[in-house]
């Protein structure tokens, strides 16, 4: 029955909307943690410094690059929505969605390369 459930939900644009929603949820979960981390500096450099050294671990850096991917794809997906909602209808949106995913992945990979 899963195949039946998925049948009409395989359009690139439906997937783009799902990715947009899931990336938003992930970012919303991450943000308070991000703010708490930066807030470590309130008591001076030392705590923030030790966090940054902890985050040098490859698995953390990988997670960070995934976050950057999510950030980029959420922004690009949102950009597509703003375009659809405020300008004349344009075709080729499925292609745009795929391009957006590719761009976000590129950004994330470049980030990963820089920090390794």
């Amino acid at each position, binding site marked *: 029955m899963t195949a039946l459930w998925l049948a009409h939900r395989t359009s690139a644009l439906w997937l783009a909307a799902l990715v947009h*929603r899931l990336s*938003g*949820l992930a*970012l*919303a979960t991450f*943000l*308070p943690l*991000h*703010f*708490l*981390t*930066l*807030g*470590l*500096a*309130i008591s001076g*450099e*030392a705590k*923030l*410094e030790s966090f*940054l050294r902890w985050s*040098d671990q490859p698995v953390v850096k990988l997670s960070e690059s995934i976050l*950057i991917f999510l*950030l*980029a794809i959420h*922004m690009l997906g*949102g*950009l597509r929505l*703003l375009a659809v*909602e405020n300008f004349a209808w344009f075709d080729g949106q499925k292609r745009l969605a795929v391009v957006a995913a590719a761009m976000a992945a590129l*950004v994330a990979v*470049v*980030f990963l390369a*820089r*920090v*390794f």
Partner: protein
Amino acid sequence: MNVRLYLWQRLTAALMLPLLLTHLVVIFYAMRKGFSAADILGRTRGSIAWALFYGTFVSAVAVHAPIGLRTVLIEWTPLRGRSSDVVAIGFGIVLAALGFRAVAAVVLP
């Protein structure tokens, strides 16, 4: 989702576009292997520009994210009406509080 929430969400999204791009550039510029707290704080401490930049960013996201969260709660959980409003607003307050604290942490001399 009604027209008022829609406008707040879309307008904060539009506002965050340039802020986000700048933030990404900053991350790319600053982050390299072994970068330190001193590297960050050396640039941000006492800076009114960074205070305004990130203060605006925090304000915008504290409006934008809760509205999105509210929609997800209404559509994907049993929460409805008032309870989804309450959770969303609560989340916004948490984001704003932690966000401004973080900005203060890196900007105050």
